[in-house]
Every structure is written in structure tokens, then in C-alpha cells.
């Protein structure tokens, strides 16, 4: 026997809990019974053929279709046309044999069917099909056929395929079932894929192979929230249609949050203000009943104001009409104190007096409670407003923590780049002026630049831009820094360094991460610039005296993509007075408000306008001014500019 239960939205928009039980009969037929909370609503034998009209009508309110697909049967043909029966399009159930599920393009069929019903657009359709395909493949192979994930070893891919085929030849395994349950509300689809085999064991360590474990990532990229719990036979997917790439908040946090909220709620300090002792007594009784014991009492507005300042309550319940100082005056005065602008104040007013209620909100009451009091309502309101406070506080705390972390990370990253003192020593030793500007798009970024002294007459300059920005890119910068520290830079030519760096990064970076790089060695004795390139934006070499500009070709395979790439060393003359400009792609790929981008030629044109005997700082200032005038708003990629001038 196999059972599952799900919520199903009914015609009026309410939710009904449905419980379905399948029983395997001796002759291979299957019984399916469906229950609501109090009664059995559907009971039928599983079909080898589509249900009769009568049986079908019986199923109408809850399911579109529920039967066993016969071998070789094509799904779209057996699915009845639904378009003219709009009230039934809230859920969809399909029960399939393992081998049917493997052999037929079920994901495509189900998607086509749902797309017609829900009028899905092309993007949502492709999202849904992708997610379903991954989910079903998972249910067939790892669910019903119980094939361990370790079979995904890289070299044995086809052996693994053969193993799958031989499992499907086992009649017992092939006749297992996968139940597809789809129900939707608004833009979200809930998909549950239930299998028969062993429950999921998810704690298995994944081996380092590019042929495995991509399914989950693909589903998540398509905007699906995936729940696959240890010891369960269900894979639950939630898909928000039309939000390719979006992800939802995982439900796991919900339980943690409930716990935190409960704790905060029970400890909450509540100030009750009323001149009528009996009213206070009633309020206190109701709160006591819900374990809210931390209560302070005031008899009028004046007393309440003093206690609010002294005790700083989490919530105030106040009667609006009182002697000495009424509730309106209290609210007006409390709201003038900055620390109490968000304090929840529940105003007690007479239900019938609409003017009183309007005025209460006007002076700053958060919510209204009407007399006579209903215990449930009182507790619910108190609870809602306390929850709001808890949420706001935890959000604020989270924001502060994240900001503090980023602050620390930014400081750590800043230390990796050359300091001003360090730059000054290089300038003095080699007569090379260096201008540098580093601006991450988030607090931290994936750009890195440095200059190293190799020997008495040679200096090395490196500029690297990791794919992506933010935390992951920044972590790669730290890795790179560690790698560079351990390499004997002076023994390598420019090309050799990039070749070595590439091989090392290839083993470190995960699939899809890479870096563009430019590494050069300035030889001040031989007047030569030797360099190697890995897909970097074209560096600009210029000789102001002759107004000659050279755009160095920036192509080449990015670092970390292919472990065997060899990077050649190239050479250019580099005399006194010459300058080399290196920049990350943000300079030329940030569009202005008209969508136009700066080109290397624009940079050249800006430089040509400056007098040829300008000092290097002028060039750098010109470049920054050009970029600032161009990109007025926030930049979306990390920007690094470095200018090396021989003086």
C-alpha cells in the first residue's frame, strides 16, 4: 500500500486536504481511493485504459486524469481536451510505470498539456520541461532503480548507462511506479514526484566528476525550489513560473523562525493603559491565558508616557479616553520620540465611533482594538504586531551582521593589493609611475592587480578579472594571491607564468568559473615590455612624445578553462616616457544612460587631447574623468584601472 496527501484548491478558492491510497491487487490492477478530511470521495480501480466518461465525471472535481499508461501509448492523445472545462484546472495526477517513464518523453508531454491549460509562455514552458525532465530522470534512476549516485564516475558513463538498461530489463523494477502530482495556485506550481524504491539517502559524498550532480543545479537555475529529504520517497519541487533564475526562500528557515518568534513573543513586555481597573483585569487575564505574563500597568497617559520611557515596552495597549492625559495625547507625545516611532500601539476604542477611530490612527496608533474585547482577536492582534517587531529586528540584525562581514572582507581584500608606500618604493627603484584605481561593484570584487619587483631592472605587473562578482569572485582572488605568493616569479617568462597559473587554477576553480588575465614584465634596461594575455580587454600602450598608440591584442583562452593551454610570450619596445594602461572590462562594458559603451578608441582620443608633455597623473585623471562622466550611476562590474609610466 502506498499513500500520499496533498492540498488541493477547490472551486471556491478554499483548500481541501486530499489523501490518496493505492493498493496493489492480486491480478495486477490497482485500487486508488481518495479521501477528504471526513469522507471518501473517489474510489476506483486504476485503469489500464482511459476512464469511461462516467468514471471520469466522478473524478472531475479533483483530478484531470489518473490511469496507467499502456505501453506505447502516447500521452497527448489520451489526455482529454480540457480547455472548455476551466474549473478543473487546479491539479493533475499521473501514475506511470518506471519503464514508461524512461522510454517516453513524459516531461515534454506533461509540459505540453499543462502549457495548453495554463497558457504558459515559451520561457515558463522550457523552465517547466527542464525541471520535470531532471526530476523524472532522478526518480527513475536513483528512485525506482535504486542506482547509486557513485555510478556517475567520469570514465564509466556508458557502463553506467548499460547498468540502467539492465535494471530496466528486470520486470520487477520496470513495473514500479512513479506518481506525478501537480497542483498550482496563481503563478506557482507544486510538483511532487513520488517513487517506490528505496528512500533517498542524500548524505552520500559526491565524487569529483563533472558528469554528476548537475541535475539539481539545473532545476534550481530554472527557478525551482527543490526538497528531497533523507528517508523520503518524494521529490517536491516548487516552480514559480515566469521567473527564470529566481530562487525562493527555503522552507527549512520557517521552523527556526517559528521557534525564535515564539521565544520573543513569550518574553515580550506589554504596557496596558486604562483608568478602569476592571478593563485592566480583563486584558491581563486574556494575555495570561496565552502565557504573556510580562505586563506593566499605567492608569493614564501621563503615567504611561513615563513608563514607556523607563521600561521601553515591546507593545502598548491603550484606552483612548482617560482622565489626566488621554490616549491621543499619549500617542502624539510618544511618536515625537525617535526611538518609539516603530513601537506598536494598539488603541482601544468604541466600535461605533468612527471619528474616534480615525483620530486614533491619525495621532499614530498602529492598530485599533474595539470594545467589547474578543479574547481571540486581542491575542491575534498582539501576536501579529509583536511578530512584525521581531521580523524587523532580526532583519536589521542580519543586515548589520552582513555589513560587518563585508567590511572585514573588504579590508582583507584591500591588503592584497599594493599599498601607496609599496608603490612609492617601486617608483623610486625603477622610475615607473603607477596610477591605480580599484572599485568593486559590491563591497568586495573579483578583480586583482599587483606589481612585483623581479630583479634590479625588471618589474612584473599583473591584472586579473575573475568571472562573476561578489563573494565567490572575491574568494578566488584570495586563492590567486596565495598561488602567486608561492611561485618563483623571477624564474618565469610572462607566458610561462600564465601557463603555470592556468594549470593550477584549472584544478581549483569549479566548472563555469574562469579568469581573464594580463601579465607583463617591464625590463627597464633592455627597454622591452614582454607580456602574455588570457582574454583580457586590449591593453593600451602609448608613446606620448610621438602621439603613437598601440592597442595590444587581448585574445587568448581565459585562465582555468583548459588545463593544457600554453600561453606564448610576446614583446614590444617600451622606452622612457612610454605608458601602459591596463583595465578591467567594466571600463569598456559599462553602458551609459543611452546604452552606449566606451571604446578603447575613446580612451585614445581622450589622451590625444592632453598636451604631450603632461605628467602620468594627468592621463590617469583624464581616464577616471572620462569614466565618471560616462557612467553616472552605480557600476555593475568591478572596475580596475592601472597605468604604468616610465619616467
Amino acid at each position, binding site marked *: 500500500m502506498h499513500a500520499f496527501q496533498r492540498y488541493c484548491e477547490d472551486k471556491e478558492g478554499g483548500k481541501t486536504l486530499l489523501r490518496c491510497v493505492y493498493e496493489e491487487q492480486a491480478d495486477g490492477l490497482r485500487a486508488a481511493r481518495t479521501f477528504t478530511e471526513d469522507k471518501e470521495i473517489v474510489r476506483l480501480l486504476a485503469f489500464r485504459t482511459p476512464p469511461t466518461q462516467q468514471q471520469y465525471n466522478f473524478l472531475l472535481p479533483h483530478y484531470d486524469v489518473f490511469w496507467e499508461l499502456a505501453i506505447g501509448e502516447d500521452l497527448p492523445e489520451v489526455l482529454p481536451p480540457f480547455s472548455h472545462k476551466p474549473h478543473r484546472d487546479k491539479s493533475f495526477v499521473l501514475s506511470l510505470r518506471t519503464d514508461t517513464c*524512461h*522510454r517516453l*518523453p513524459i*516531461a*515534454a508531454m506533461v509540459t505540453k498539456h499543462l502549457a495548453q491549460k495554463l497558457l504558459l509562455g*515559451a520561457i515558463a514552458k*522550457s523552465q517547466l*520541461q*527542464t525541471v520535470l*525532465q*531532471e526530476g523524472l*530522470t532522478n526518480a527513475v*534512476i536513483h528512485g525506482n532503480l535504486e542506482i547509486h549516485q557513485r555510478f556517475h564516475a567520469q570514465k564509466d*558513463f*556508458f557502463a553506467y*548507462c548499460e547498468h*540502467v*538498461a539492465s535494471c530496466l530489463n528486470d520486470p520487477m523494477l520496470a513495473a514500479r511506479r512513479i506518481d506525478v502530482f501537480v497542483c498550482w495556485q496563481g503563478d506557482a506550481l507544486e510538483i511532487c514526484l513520488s517513487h517506490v524504491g528505496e528512500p533517498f539517502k542524500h548524505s552520500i559524498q559526491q565524487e569529483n566528476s*563533472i*558528469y*554528476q550532480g*548537475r*541535475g539539481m*543545479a*539545473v532545476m534550481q*537555475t530554472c527557478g525551482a525550489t527543490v526538497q528531497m529529504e533523507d528517508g523520503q520517497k518524494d521529490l517536491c519541487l516548487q516552480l514559480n513560473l515566469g521567473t*527564470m533564475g529566481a530562487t525562493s526562500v527555503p522552507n527549512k528557515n520557517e521552523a527556526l523562525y517559528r521557534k525564535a518568534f515564539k521565544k520573543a513573543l513569550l518574553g515580550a513586555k506589554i504596557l496596558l493603559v486604562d483608568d478602569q481597573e476592571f478593563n485592566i483585569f480583563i486584558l491581563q487575564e486574556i494575555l495570561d491565558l496565552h502565557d504573556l505574563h510580562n505586563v506593566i500597568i499605567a492608569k493614564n497617559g501621563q503615567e504611561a508616557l513615563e513608563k514607556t520611557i523607563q521600561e521601553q515596552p515591546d507593545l502598548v495597549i491603550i484606552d483612548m479616553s482617560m482622565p489626566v492625559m488621554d490616549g491621543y495625547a499619549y500617542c502624539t507625545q510618544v511618536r515625537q520620540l525617535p526611538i518609539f516611532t516603530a513601537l506598536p500601539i494598539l488603541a482601544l476604542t468604541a466600535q461605533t465611533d468612527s471619528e474616534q477611530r480615525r483620530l486614533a490612527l491619525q495621532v499614530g496608533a498602529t492598530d485599533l482594538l474595539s470594545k467589547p474585547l474578543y479574547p481571540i482577536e486581542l491575542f491575534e492582534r498582539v501576536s501579529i504586531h509583536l511578530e512584525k517587531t521581531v521580523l524587523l529586528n532580526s532583519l536589521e540584525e542580519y543586515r548589520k551582521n552582513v555589513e560587518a562581514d563585508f567590511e572585514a572582507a573588504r579590508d582583507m581584500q584591500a591588503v592584497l593589493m599594493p599599498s601607496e608606500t609599496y608603490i612609492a618604493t617601486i617608483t623610486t627603484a625603477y622610475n615607473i609611475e603607477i596610477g591605480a584605481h580599484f572599485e568593486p561593484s559590491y563591497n568586495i570584487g573579483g578583480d586583482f592587480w599587483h606589481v612585483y619587483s623581479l630583479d634590479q631592472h625588471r618589474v612584473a605587473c599583473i591584472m586579473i578579472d575573475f568571472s562573476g562578482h561578489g563573494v565567490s569572485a572575491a574568494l578566488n582572488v584570495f586563492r590567486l594571491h596565495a598561488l602567486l605568493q608561492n611561485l618563483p616569479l623571477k624564474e618565469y617568462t610572462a607566458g610561462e607564468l600564465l601557463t603555470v597559473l592556468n594549470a593550477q587554477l584549472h584544478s581549483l576553480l569549479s*566548472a*563555469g568559473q*574562469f579568469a581573464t588575465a594580463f601579465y607583463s614584465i617591464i625590463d627597464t634596461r633592455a627597454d622591452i615590455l614582454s607580456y602574455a594575455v588570457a582574454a583580457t580587454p586590449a591593453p593600451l600602450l602609448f608613446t606620448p612624445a610621438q602621439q603613437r598608440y598601440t592597442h595590444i591584442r587581448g585574445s587568448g583562452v*581565459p585562465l582555468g*578553462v583548459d588545463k593544457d593551454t600554453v600561453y606564448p610570450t610576446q614583446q614590444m619596445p617600451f622606452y622612457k616616457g612610454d605608458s601602459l594602461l591596463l583595465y578591467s572590462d567594466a571600463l569598456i562594458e559599462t553602458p551609459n544612460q543611452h546604452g552606449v559603451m566606451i571604446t578603447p578608441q575613446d580612451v585614445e582620443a581622450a589622451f590625444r587631447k592632453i598636451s604631450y608633455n603632461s605628467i602620468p597623473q594627468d592621463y590617469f585623471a583624464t581616464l577616471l574623468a572620462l569614466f565618471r562622466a560616462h557612467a553616472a550611476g552605480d557600476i555593475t562590474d568591478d572596475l580596475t584601472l592601472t597605468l604604468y609610466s616610465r619616467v
Partner: protein
Amino acid sequence: MQLEKRIEDNQSTITMSGGFTFSDNAVFRDVITLITSKASRAVNIDVRGLNFIDSSGLGMLLLARDEAKNHNVILTLSRAVGQVQDMFEVAQFEILFAIK
């Protein structure tokens, strides 16, 4: 998935159409065999006719890339469309493959 092969010394072309998922592994094995046999110096896989690919399909194309590299065969992909193009983008295939 349907697969057609045109084998020549210099450049073989494989045309794939339909959906490319795990269950097509037996069909795709032919492509691997073609590459490892070194029957031609270059192989182009034409994926313009594919309308769907899953993670196993992507995995098999990567397998072909590795075998091509091991056997000094030049492997290229033609530009994909629709869902296949999206998946190529997600998996950064434009960096891993030469795409014509």
C-alpha cells in the same frame, strides 16, 4: 532524438534533432565511437535541430569534448536555439566549446 552522420576525411557532420536526454545515451555512443576512431580530423555537431536538452545531454557533449581532445580531433558545435541555447548559456558552453 534523431541522429544523422555524414562522414568525410576532413570534416564529419553529426546532425541531432528532437530532444536530447539521458535515454538517448545509446544513440549518442555512436558519436563517441566516431570521434575515438579518428575517422576524420574534425567533427561538427549540428545542434540547431535540438529543441530540448537535459543535464545528462550536456554531460554527454562534455564527454565528447574530452574524447576529442584525447584523440586530437577538432570538435565544434553549431549555435543552439531556444531551451538548448539557454542551457548552453547556463553551462557556459561558449567557453568550453568552439561554437560555429
